[in-house]
């Protein structure tokens, strides 16, 4: 393959980014992230029982990550699910692809443009929120918080890659909505399957509640990007055991930060490669 034309990639990326500035999505997203952080910090502060209004960065994030690991994928899916199928259906893609540009350039441009929207809103939203917390509570665990921001962006890119893959594959906007819903609920679907296997292999519900589960059950998070993300966020704050209902469960050695980053990267790159092949082979 010959070299790519950075000008074409930049032009596509700029268009996607500017679209989200024009329709003010980017402002809405940033606000959502700021508000989320503040609300969860407030909740974390109330729990401490020491009279603080806001909770610390770590507790805030641990409360927030359950929501953000759903919200960020949702945003990424909304940004990307129709970026190719929708334009193919409306007809705008016909003009674009008749120009002296490569399809791969269009694909990368879209990923980078929509990715910038995610980077911008998460960085600004979580960044501002973080500064407010640090100003009122203190800057403890700020390194973990910074990792949380980076991991959140990474999660956004994973789901962007997945949704662009869906968009390249689906002929119509409607079918790609279906695909988007499928990947959004994948964590839930997959979780149920794994739980089914756990109970099927002789473990009881009590075992599950008390954390008496085999390592493979933990390690299976690698097949669910949202769960892998949550685990990585915990490890980023240096916490390797989960405290719940009076029990403490240790995260297995296998799930190191390096391992989870590799898992993240695989979840990002495989759909992107598939998207490239789907898009390349696509008939308009």
């Amino acid at each position, binding site marked *: 393959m010959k070299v790519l034309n950075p000008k074409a990639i930049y032009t596509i990326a700029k268009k996607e980014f500017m679209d989200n500035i024009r329709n003010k999505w980017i402002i809405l997203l940033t606000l959502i992230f700021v508000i989320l952080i503040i609300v969860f910090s407030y909740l974390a502060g109330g729990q401490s029982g020491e009279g603080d209004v806001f909770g610390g960065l770590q507790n805030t994030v641990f409360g927030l990550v359950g929501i953000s690991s759903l919200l960020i994928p949702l945003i990424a899916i909304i940004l990307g699910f129709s970026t190719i199928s929708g334009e193919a259906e409306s007809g705008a893609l016909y003009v*674009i692809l008749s*120009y002296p540009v490569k399809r791969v350039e269009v694909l990368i441009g879209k990923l980078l443009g929509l990715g910038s929207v995610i980077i911008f809103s998460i960085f600004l939203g979580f960044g501002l929120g973080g500064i407010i917390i640090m100003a009122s509570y203190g800057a403890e665990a700020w390194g973990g918080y910074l990792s949380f921001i980076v991991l959140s962006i990474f999660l956004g890119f994973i789901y962007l890659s997945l949704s662009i893959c869906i968009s390249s594959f689906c002929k119509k906007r409607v079918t790609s909505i279906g695909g988007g819903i499928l990947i959004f609920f994948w964590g839930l679907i997959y979780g149920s399957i794994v739980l089914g296997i756990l109970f099927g292999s002789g473990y009881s519900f009590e075992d599950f509640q008390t954390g008496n589960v085999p390592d493979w059950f933990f390690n299976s998070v690698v097949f669910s990007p949202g769960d892998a993300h949550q685990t990585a966020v915990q490890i980023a704050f240096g916490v390797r055991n989960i405290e719940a209902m009076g029990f403490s469960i240790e995260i297995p050695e296998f799930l190191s930060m390096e391992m989870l980053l590799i898992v993240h990267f695989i979840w990002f790159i495989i759909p992107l490669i598939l998207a490239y092949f789907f898009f390349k082979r696509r008939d308009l």
Partner: protein
Amino acid sequence: MNTKTIMCPQCKTKFTIQGNSGEKIQVVCPSCGVKGVFTFSIDQTKSTITHDSYAVEINDLTKKFKDLVAVNNLSLNVKKGEIFGLLGPNGAGKSTTIKSILGLIHTNSGEIKINGFDIIKKGIEARASVGYLPERVAFYDNLTPLQTMNFLSELWGVDKSVSKPLIKEVGLEGAMNRKVGTFSKGMVQLLGVAQVMIGNPPVYILDEPMGGLDARWVKIIREKIKILNKQGATILFSSHILSEVENLCHRVAIINKGKLIAEDTVANLNKYLQIKPRLEISIPGLNGEVPDIIKNIEGVEIANAKNDTLFITCESYAKSKIIAILQNSGMTIDNIKTLEPSLEDAFVKLIERDA
């Protein structure tokens, strides 16, 4: 067969000779009678065919959609500098052919070149030499024409300063800052024509450029095609309406069911299709009888009458003669209708003849 102008070494007279490439022929000077031998070169003639004469070359193009063969072994050449009409009824494979030329769809077999560049092997170069107007052209509803053209010209690789002049050229300057989403179909089509001209390509491929537009827009687009052609561009456009191409195209190809039926000049095609107008003349008091004087007029093929209406199928040139003769014989003509046969009718004829 190649033609070559040579000069007699004896008397310096210039004259032309003909022969196949690679052929060695005996030459006799027409003015002084000196004999000689001339060999036609092989490579040179071949390369001129692929690079210099054709703007678009299609060789043995086949495209299947599952079981449906949309284009079947189609070969076509569009010469540089001509306006070429691709005609066919709806579903004949026109759009599929055009999309294949641009590389928007993947063909099952065949070779396609634009301006000498293979669309698969040299896709960027090929697409850099063509401006394409899709059948249902669409842009981004949330952008203004200026934002759209700025984006597109940047994507093409030219400076965005070309945007405003091009928008003005198609007459959309009044809507420069309106959202494209609020545009009428004709206005979107005009913006489509504006984007086609980005980068000043030597070849234009327009898919049904006048489809579904009212007369005013059609006229603007026809004029634009003529102007572009005068400036030296090659234009290939498709249509399913014969009258759209008649006075515009130098050459026409007719396709049906994915197959090439005919490829010729419009004049030759009319002859080939035997497209003849049908006259409907209302004459009070005719009472279902065909006047004898009609039968003797040259160019009249079929004449019959029903009540007070006379139906005549004739050559185009005979129309005025028929009216004049009828009037001279003292008949009153109430109304005249000319029915031009549709392309679809001509197709039915052609297919029936082929079968």
